[in-house]
């Protein structure tokens, strides 16, 4: 009996081993007839339904030739899935990745250069058709790893009715912003003690706001070696420009959680709200009468040459390490899809994103969208510095920004030192 049990147990182990190891996927390599493409993304919000619509449109126009099968996962699990499944050769044919991760994934070898794809497919994808800085940021060691779909950023949403009520014009710089917020806050507080001029959550999207402030005060995220560079006078000024709005100007209550500020704005309890372009549709649905202005020159404490800069990130098409030999027809199908979505990204723009494709932005459909121009001038867009270890070097500052926003008596130098110390340990580990 014991023997039987042992054999049984051994069998179970072997079975699970086989199941977990996951063999090779034996896809047919003869590519005749319709080609099925697996396409992954992390677009699950309001923007996700627009992507579904685009994919359906593509499939309808390519019936019998190409069929795109989309799989979407929420962002938290998305990169976990990529990390686990692509090395097991269970990745897709094409997927979306955030621009600031492209260098790091290129460095690990999980995604592959795609110039060969473009060349062999003959599909017309060239840098001059895209926002130049965004396109150029997708090179790693002189090879192109991504084709940008969009850029997204944060803007300052304002309540039009309230500005009109106090006969104020739309602010164009920091002084005007603070002045307008103060005027309306003082006026409204008489009848509503819960009203605030510019409520700011200390948790999110504070990393965007700090980055805008860092750029506008002439600071850098990382230096040429990829080491942290925000521990500088500019970094201290950047922190101060953000936290002063709460601690000095008194335009926001302390310790707001994620989206508490959004909720206040959508219920008319705030004049201004700093939020991502990806939330645009949520604002429209809330029924509030709003407009959008760029964050340009809202955070510089002194006159700087970079005072108008706006941090942006991009959703980018990348191609994971392939599971089987990719035929020329399949490469062509992938690039046809990438090109198609890029050219039609004026549809994608209805979700709040700004198309990276110049072709899509030139369409009358895009030009007719009412809010997109409010996020700022393209020439002021600045994409994060490029390094395969950007995340390790820069992300430790995020929790320190939160700490400074929650504590009136914070010590900027101590916080920046702590962030750099953690970043250096993370970098040391990543570079091993």
């Amino acid at each position, binding site marked *: 009996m014991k023997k039987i049990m042992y054999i049984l147990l051994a069998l179970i182990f072997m079975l699970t081993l086989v199941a977990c190891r996951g063999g090779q996927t034996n896809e047919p390599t003869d590519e005749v007839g319709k080609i099925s493409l697996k396409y992954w993304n992390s677009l699950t919000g309001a923007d996700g339904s627009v992507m579904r619509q685009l994919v359906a449109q593509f499939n309808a126009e390519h019936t019998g030739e190409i069929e795109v099968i989309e799989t979407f996962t929420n962002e938290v699990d998305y*990169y976990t899935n990529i990390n686990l499944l692509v090395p097991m050769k269970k990745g897709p044919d094409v997927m979306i990745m955030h621009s600031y991760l492209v260098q790091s994934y290129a460095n690990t070898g999980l995604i592959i250069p795609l110039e060969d794809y473009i060349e062999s497919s003959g599909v017309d994808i060239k840098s001059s058709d895209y926002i130049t800085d965004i396109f150029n940021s997708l090179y790693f060691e002189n090879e192109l790893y991504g084709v940008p779909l969009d850029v997204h950023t944060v803007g300052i949403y304002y309540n039009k009715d309230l500005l009109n009520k106090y006969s104020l014009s739309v602010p164009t710089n920091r002084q005007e912003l603070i002045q307008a917020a103060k005027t309306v806050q003082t006026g409204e507080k008489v009848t509503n003690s819960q009203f605030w001029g510019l409520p700011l959550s200390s948790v999110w999207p504070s990393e965007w706001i700090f980055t805008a402030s860092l750029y506008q005060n002439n600071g850098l995220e990382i230096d040429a070696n990829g080491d942290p560079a925000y521990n500088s006078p500019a970094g201290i000024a950047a922190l101060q420009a953000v936290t002063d709005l709460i601690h000095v100007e008194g335009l926001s*209550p302390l*310790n707001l959680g994620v989206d508490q500020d959004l909720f206040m704005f959508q219920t008319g309890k705030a004049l201004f709200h700093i939020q991502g372009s990806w939330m645009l549709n949520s604002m429209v649905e809330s029924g509030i009468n709003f407009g959008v202005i760029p964050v340009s020159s809202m955070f510089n404490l002194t006159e700087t040459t970079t005072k108008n800069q706006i941090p942006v990130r991009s959703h980018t098409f990348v191609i994971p390490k392939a599971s089987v030999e990719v035929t020329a027809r399949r490469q062509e199908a992938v690039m046809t899809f990438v090109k198609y979505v890029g050219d039609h990204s004026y549809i994608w723009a209805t979700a709040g994103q700004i198309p990276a494709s110049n072709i899509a932005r030139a369409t009358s459909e895009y030009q007719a969208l009412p809010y997109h121009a409010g996020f700022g001038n393209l020439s002021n867009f600045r994409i994060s510095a490029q390094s395969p270890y950007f995340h390790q070097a820069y992300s430790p500052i995020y*929790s320190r920004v939160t700490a400074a926003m929650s504590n009136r008596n914070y010590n900027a130098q101590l916080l920046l030192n702590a962030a750099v110390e953690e970043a250096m340990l993370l970098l040391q580990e990543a570079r091993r």
Partner: protein
Amino acid sequence: MQISLDMKRRRMKRIVKEHASAYAFLLPYLVLFSVFFIFPFIYGLVISLFNWNLFFPEETRFIGFDNFRRIWFESDGIYYRYFWSGLKNTLIFVIFSVPFLVMIPLILAALIDMEPKGYKVFRTILFMPTVLSISSVILIWKWQFYTNGGFINALLLKLGLNEIPFLVSQPWAWISIIVVTIWWTMGTNMVILGAGLKNIDRSLYEAASIDGANYIQTFRYITMPSLAPQMLIVMITTVLASFGVYGQPDLLTNGGPDFSTTVLMMRIRPLALGTNANPGIATAMAVSMGILMVVISIVQAKIIKRRGDA
């Protein structure tokens, strides 16, 4: 020798015949238990001894106990810092939550055991939070704890007091987490202890009252020793559950302020699967925590058993 072996074999055959149906019923469970427990457990132990490379499986190397050395002793490394600060925060939670998680259910169980009018209603109400999922529990409590609009703070303001930043400053963040945990999990311990109280021989209480013992004395000398078996279970399961704390700080405080509520599980998970994954280090941390939990459980069992015997 030959005969005894032969007898043994025959005996085995008989046992198998008699219990064949029992084994058949056990088999599905055994399969699931192997697939979802035994296999991952052993696989985890194996991973902790490797420099596990997610991106290039072929580069995975055996490195013995080097992962353990790095998290325990390599004091200038990031993993050392993650491990010890995470473990410290987990221990803070265990030390401050377990006494309440045992004492409060004990008091409630004793009160309900007196069977006052409507005790069944109270028992149901007190048990109810246990069936909720962690996400709904946190949703309910976040709206109590929020500054600027949260229920408790709105009440404080109405009373002319200052707001308390429950979720973003210490020690309030820990207090919030522990309060939520007590509310959420006290039901189970209450039921176990309540069942224990029911089983105590009533004649012991009568004897005590004849001897002139008051309530406190009865509780100390009759109730507590009789409850030892239930206490053992409650103490061990509560300590183990507290070590595994994850959902409350992750959802309520997000590990803040300044990582002071980032417990060890919150360090292990992203290390196992996240963007900067290092499964070898993550499993080494988990195994270290497991060893600590086993040691503490054994010590606890020893102490409580000795007390129960005395």
